[in-house]
């Protein structure tokens, strides 16, 4: 009999813990659903507005699902500004910077991770410390220099720096390359392979996941960049979507349904990309979060 009392107490405690767990689960679920709604409502409202006729845009109480769908807003929005031209400009910059950064950052990352040269750790520290430099510090001399080179109003100031490596990607690649066993490259070196051969035939093929992460991040970076194009692109033939979107607005009048249609068109590719590349995104977050 003496043993049952503590046994009963233990069971009661387990039961109360389980009850508490169920309570947290229900409560957590309610809060999480509320949070998810709050975080998605702005996107839903953007899409909803984009399908409204002008008189529905400002209706009270708010209309969530307009009927009929004003598909023509999209046609009007695309024709109201040179949308397709700006899309083309944006894609040119995205593609060029992805190529540029993949070539340059992998080379530098390889040097830091796989070539045992004196001074590479000092270089790594220098590379990391440049990440802490606020853009306004270099912004003005860069603008002046690019101006002297005749690069203002061209995509060059936005593209060419990507071919010279980006600190964040270099660091990611260095961390990834470090995890590749040295035996592979050592064996190839003994067999007389050149560094470039080891880099291209052994290291890069093993690095596809991290290359995908970098391509994805760089695409988003270029697609989302606002300050760069704002500073360097002045002619309305050279704008990117980020700058072009402001043209739906005159000084005191905004056509919200058109602006929201255009915003939807800008956001949509990113959302599609997200759903198709969700695993790459998650890998990217993990790499940047834990090792960053």
């Amino acid at each position: 009999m003496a043993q049952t009392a503590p046994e009963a107490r233990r069971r009661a405690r387990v039961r109360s813990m389980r009850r508490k767990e169920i309570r947290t689960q229900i409560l957590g679920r309610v809060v999480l659903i509320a949070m998810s709604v709050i975080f998605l409502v702005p996107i839903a409202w953007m899409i909803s507005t984009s399908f409204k006729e002008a008189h529905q845009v400002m209706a009270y109480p708010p209309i969530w699902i307009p009927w009929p769908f004003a598909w023509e807003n999209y046609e009007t929005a695309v024709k109201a500004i040179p949308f397709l031209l700006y899309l083309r400009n944006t894609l040119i910059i995205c593609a060029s910077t992805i190529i540029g950064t993949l070539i340059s950052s992998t080379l530098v990352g390889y040097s830091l991770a796989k070539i045992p040269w004196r001074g590479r750790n000092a270089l790594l520290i220098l590379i990391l410390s440049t990440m802490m430099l606020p853009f306004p510090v270099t912004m003005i001399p860069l603008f002046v220099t690019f101006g002297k080179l005749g690069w203002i109003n061209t995509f060059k100031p936005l593209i060419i720096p990507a071919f010279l490596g980006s600190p964040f990607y270099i660091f990611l690649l260095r961390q990834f390359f470090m995890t590749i066993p040295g035996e592979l490259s050592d064996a190839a070196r003994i067999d007389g392979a050149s560094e470039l051969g080891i880099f291209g035939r052994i290291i890069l093929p093993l690095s596809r996941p991290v290359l995908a992460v970098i391509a994805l991040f760089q695409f988003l970076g270029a697609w989302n960049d606002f300050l760069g194009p704002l500073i360097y692109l002045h002619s309305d033939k050279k704008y990117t979507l980020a700058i072009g979107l402001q043209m739906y607005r005159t000084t005191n009048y905004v056509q919200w349904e058109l602006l929201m249609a255009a915003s939807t068109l800008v956001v949509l590719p990113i959302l599609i990309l997200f759903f198709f590349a969700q695993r790459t995104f998650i890998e990217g977050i993990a790499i940047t979060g834990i090792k960053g």
Partner: protein
Amino acid sequence: MGMTRQEKRALVMGLAFAAPWIIGFVLFVAYPVAASLYYSFTEFTGLDITGFVGFGNYIEMLTRDELFHKSLYNTLYYLSLAVPLGFIVALCLAMLLNLKIREVSIYRTCVYIPNIIPAFAASFVWLWLLNPEYGLVNLVLEQVGIWGPGWVSDPRWSKFSIVLMAQWGAGGSAMIFLASLQDVPRSLYEVAELDGASAWRKFRYITLPMISPVILFHVIMALFGAFQVFTPAYIMTAGGPANSTLFYVLYLYRNAFNYGKMGYASAMAWLLFILALVTTLIVMKTSARFVYYQGEER
């Protein structure tokens, strides 16, 4: 130096592979940093340097330029709200998303998505949501009988509106916190539970210390981001109303590219850099007592 042939070869190859960044560093970092420091002591229109003024630009901004004071105040105001709030929101989200719920990955996706929306598009969407008369936020408030403020048109609310909007992107930091929460060994909590520790004590004495390095990293990055807040103010409010969202970098941008005062803007950039560095150093120094690195003896 006594280097073997192999070491020499490694040095040459290492430098050759690192050459892109070294060239980039000289052209796009070292030279511009030096040039902007030099410009900051001059009157510079962008075309011609019309005079060397020593510390004139710095003295001007610190003692006379009221718009500068306003912009510094606005940025510090934004920073002191946005950084703590951003931290709390992200950590709370991360803890919620760490609950053992079957469909939790759906919630993770929902909360993360706004983070990948470009700042310029988010600014337009929020400008519309926060429209004082027809914006969804005030329409919904009106339905429950609250007369919403003029979010972006009222100088008393405009900075707060931008802080609020910034929270929409909290999902990104939340995912980083979530990853570090998942790295905390279960066994620590189990031991604490056997000792009958409350949820708060588990959070305070296990969770917080274990994720403190990630918190420190988050806070420093958030501070740097907040010092440079630009796009929302440029798009949503153009610095207004009544200069209430004239943030530091927006005013710097205007000096450089609208007023042709590039020397002055360079001085502003350097002061910003120094401010950000000093703030970071203070955070690092004061955090040394709170941040716990695994494997470190205490």
